[in-house]
């Protein structure tokens, strides 16, 4: 794939559809010195969903909901990879899981509603879940049977490949469901993004507070930084969605 085409793929779908070929042409004309601006331009547009032209009905909500699903998947995988952290649920200290509440509230708020095509929606959802359920069942069976003499790196690779596969399919499922279901309007999306952003910010603060009390852990600080950046991005996008269009 040419670099210009790869850079265009960084842009939100509506921008790609409206301006994709023009952007590609400009990048080819300007050469490598235009790449940083093209990348930052894509980043800026992802932070401003209110600027996306609606090239299909409900497209902005569908894309934002899918992006939120991708963020939730990425967060889950990162937390799984880092092992026990100050964010890990502890039954003796339920307050450590408070950060999760606004995020779950936000995801529920942004969830698509069934609408008139309930049967079709359920069929698409069921079909979309089949690969994930099969992959997780195989993983469970593999864990139940045991390593069978296979090397540990191979088993670890299989484990993470399965989790990645399931995560990607959940994002695809969100995008497919978004074509049938009733997607959240700007107000609901605004509230959802603010709740998720608040949860991520709370999680970052919780990690930093723990890091200050205990010894400095570079991994934890990186995790806190990543969460803080994600929180800032989600809050900026939420503010933009709330201010860009009238409620519907």
């Amino acid at each position, binding site marked *: 794939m040419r670099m210009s085409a790869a850079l265009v793929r960084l842009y939100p779908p509506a921008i790609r559809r409206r301006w994709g070929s023009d*952007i590609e042409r400009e990048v080819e004309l300007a050469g490598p010195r235009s790449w940083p601006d093209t990348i930052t331009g*894509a980043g800026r547009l992802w932070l401003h969903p209110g600027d996306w032209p609606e090239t299909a009905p409900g497209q902005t909500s569908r894309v934002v909901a899918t992006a939120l699903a991708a963020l939730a998947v990425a967060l889950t995988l990162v937390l799984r990879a880092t092992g026990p952290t100050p964010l890990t649920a502890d039954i003796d200290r339920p307050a450590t899981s408070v950060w999760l509440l606004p995020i779950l509230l936000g995801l529920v708020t942004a969830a698509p509603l069934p609408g008139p095509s309930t049967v079709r929606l359920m069929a698409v959802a069921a079909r979309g879940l089949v690969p994930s359920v099969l992959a997780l069942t195989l993983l469970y069976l593999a864990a139940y049977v045991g390593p069978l003499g296979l090397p540990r790196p191979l088993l670890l690779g299989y484990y993470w490949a399965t989790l990645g596969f399931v995560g990607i399919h959940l994002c695809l499922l969100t995008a497919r469901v978004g074509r049938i279901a009733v997607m959240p309007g700007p107000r609901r999306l605004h509230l959802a993004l603010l709740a998720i952003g608040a949860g991520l910010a709370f999680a970052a603060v919780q990690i930093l507070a723990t890091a200050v009390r205990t010894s400095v852990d570079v991994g934890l600080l990186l995790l806190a930084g990543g969460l803080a950046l994600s929180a800032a991005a989600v809050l900026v996008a939420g503010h933009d969605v709330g201010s860009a269009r009238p409620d519907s």
Partner: protein
Amino acid sequence: MHSNDAQMLVLTVLADGPRHGYAINTEIEALTGNRLRPGSLYGALARLEARSLIEPVTADGDERQRTVRITDAGRQTLRAELEQMARVAKAGLRALGSAPA
């Protein structure tokens, strides 16, 4: 270039007539000596369209080269901005003229 500057340049070029992205940038190059980078140009176009200051000429036109035009609101915004810039330029030139060389 600042995003607001890019938006002003795009509006200025479109005040002369509808154009597609590449033609807008060619006019900007003729005006300023530099083309806008793709991220700045298409970010400005998206922002201006979201603020209803420009609009596509046809909703279902050629997807490869989307032509846009300035709206009435865009003309009003451009006029207000240019008048303000003219006032600032006049004050600056007056101050420079009165200052010792």
